C-alpha cells in the first residue's frame, strides 16, 4: 500500500512557489505535506495531497510540470526511537532511502519515504507491523 506524491519542477524564479500555492488554494486543494529541495537553477517540490490525480490536472493546466511518484507514507508513533525502528527494517534489507520528509498532524506523525521498489517496501513494512497510510487516509486527514 503506497501513495502517490506530486512533484513539481520549478525554475528558480521569484514568485513561482507562491503561484503554485495560489492555484492549489483557488481549487481548494489541501497540502498535507510539502518539502522543497533546491539547486541554484531550479527546485523540486514534492508534496502529498488528498487527490493527486486531480491536483496534477489542475497544475498542468496552469503550466506546471508535474510528476507523480510512488512513495510510502508511514505512521510514526510519537515516541523516541520510532523512526529508528522503521529505518532499521529497511537497512536490514539493504534498501536505500532516496529521500524522505516527515510531518505531524495534530496527533499523528507521518514520514514520506521514497526508495526503489516501493511496492516491495510497503509489503515489507506491513509484514513487520508498521502502519502505513493509504491515499484515502491522507484525504481524510
Amino acid at each position, binding site marked *: 500500500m503506497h501513495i502517490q506524491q506530486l512533484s513539481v519542477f520549478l*525554475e528558480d524564479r521569484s514568485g513561482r512557489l507562491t503561484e503554485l500555492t495560489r492555484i492549489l488554494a483557488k481549487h481548494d486543494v489541501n497540502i498535507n505535506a510539502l518539502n522543497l529541495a533546491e539547486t541554484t*537553477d*531550479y527546485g*523540486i517540490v514534492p508534496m502529498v495531497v488528498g487527490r493527486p490525480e486531480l491536483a496534477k490536472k489542475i497544475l498542468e493546466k496552469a503550466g*506546471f*510540470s508535474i510528476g507523480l511518484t510512488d512513495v510510502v507514507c508511514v505512521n510514526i508513533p510519537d515516541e523516541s526511537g520510532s523512526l529508528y525502528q522503521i529505518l532499521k527494517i529497511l537497512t536490514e534489507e539493504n534498501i536505500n532511502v*532516496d529521500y524522505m520528509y516527515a510531518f505531524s498532524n495534530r496527533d499523528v506523525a507521518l514520514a514520506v519515504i521514497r526508495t526503489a521498489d516501493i511496492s516491495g517496501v510497503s509489503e515489507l513494512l506491513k509484514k513487520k507491523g508498521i502502519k502505513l497510510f493509504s491515499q484515502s487516509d491522507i484525504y481524510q486527514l
Partner: protein
Amino acid sequence: MIWNPERECAEREQMHQLQSEQLSRMIQRMYDHVPFYRNRFKEKGIEPGDISSVEQLKELPFTTKDDLRENYPFALFTVPQSDIIRIHASSGTTGKPTVVGYTWQDLEIWSEVVARSLTMAGVHSKDTIQVAYGYGPFTGGLGLHYGAEKVGATVIPISIGNTRKQLQFMTDFNATVLACTPSYAAYLGESILKEGFSPEDVKLRIGIFGAEPWSNEMRKEIEKLLRIKAYDIYGLSEVIGPGVSKECECQCGSHIFEDHFIPEIIHPETLEVLPDGEIGELVFTTVSKEAMPLLRYRTRDLTRLYREKCACGRTLVRMEKCLGRSDDMLIIRGVNVFPSQVESVLMEMSEISPHYQLIIRREKNLDTLEILVEINEKNWSDSIRELEMIKHRIELNIKSLLGVRATARLMEPHSIERSEGKAKRIIDLRK
C-alpha cells in the same frame, strides 16, 4: 519516383555540356544588361565570348551579399521591369533584406525544382500538403505552394502561426505532408496533445523542413514526435528560394539541381576552389535564371559536395546537411562553435526537449556559454541527484565534443520562447 529523369539522372558529360552552354549565355546577358557585371568583367579583362566551358567558372569573379545591397533594389536585373512578374525579399536573417525578381520563366523553373524536391520525398498528387511556411516576401510559403500545385497535390496554404488552427486543419483535412521550419514542426508535434488533439487523427507521413540549419538528431526527434519521415529542403532567396537542393529517400545529403544552380565549394579566406569532400563555403552560379542571374554567389553556408552516384539513381551532385551559416558561427574563447553542433549533443538526450537557447556573455573578459534546455515533460525525474546528473552530462558532452566549457540550465517545459518561423536560438550579449 523521379520528376525529371532526363535532368536528374543525366550523364556527367551531358550535364557538363548543358551547364557550359547556359553559362556562356548567362555571361553574355550579364555583360549586355548589367553595368555592375560588365565592369567586373572588364576589370578582369574577360570578354563574353571567352567563356565557353563550365571549367572556366573558377576564373570568374564572385558576387557577395554586399554586392546585392549596393545594387539595391533592382540594379542586378538583366530584364526590363515589364518582364518581372514577382518580387521576393530575403527574410533578413542577417542585415537588411535582399531583393530578388522573377520572370514567368523563373517561376516555372522554381515550380519545377520544388516539384522535383517533393517527388524525391515521395509526395504525389494524392497527397494533401500543409504549407506552414510564411507566405509573403519570404520565399518559403509561395515556393512550396507552386511546386506542390505542379505535383498536383492538394495545398493547404495556411502560412505560419496559429497553432490550434494548424492542428485543426491538419486533422480535419487529413494533411499527409507538412512543410515548415524544423523548429515549428517540433512545436506543432508537442502541441498535439496539449491542444486537445489525438495523435491518431494526425495522418502526416512526410515532412519537408528547411530555412534553418537542423541536426540529424533533431530530425530523429521530429520523426518520432510526428511519426513521419522528415526531409531537408535547402534554398536561399538569392538563388531562387526553397528547392535549390533536396534530400532523396536515402537521406544521405541533398541533391543540388545543378542544371540550374552550379555549386562550388571554396575556402572562405583564400577563395580557392576546394576538391569534392572538403568542407568550405558553398557558392552558386544560377545559369538558367532570367531576371537576376548570379555569378559565383557566396552563400556563406558551410558544407561539402559528393559526386558518387546515389542509390536513388540520381546523378545530381549532393551536398551534406549544412553545418551552419558562417555568420551563425560563434567564437567562444577562440573556439569555433556552430549552434547545430550543440543541438546534436542535446538531441541525443531523451531527458530534455528539442528546444534550447544559447546565451553568450562576456564576464571579466572571458566568454561564457550558457545553454538553456527544457526538461522533457514526460520523462523527468523528481530526484535532484538525477537532474544534476543530466546537467553534468550536457556540460561534459559539450566540453568533450566541442572543446568549450558551458553551463547548462534546466528549465521548465514550454518556458523557452517558441518561434513560428526561424527559431531564435542564440542570444549573444557580448555585442
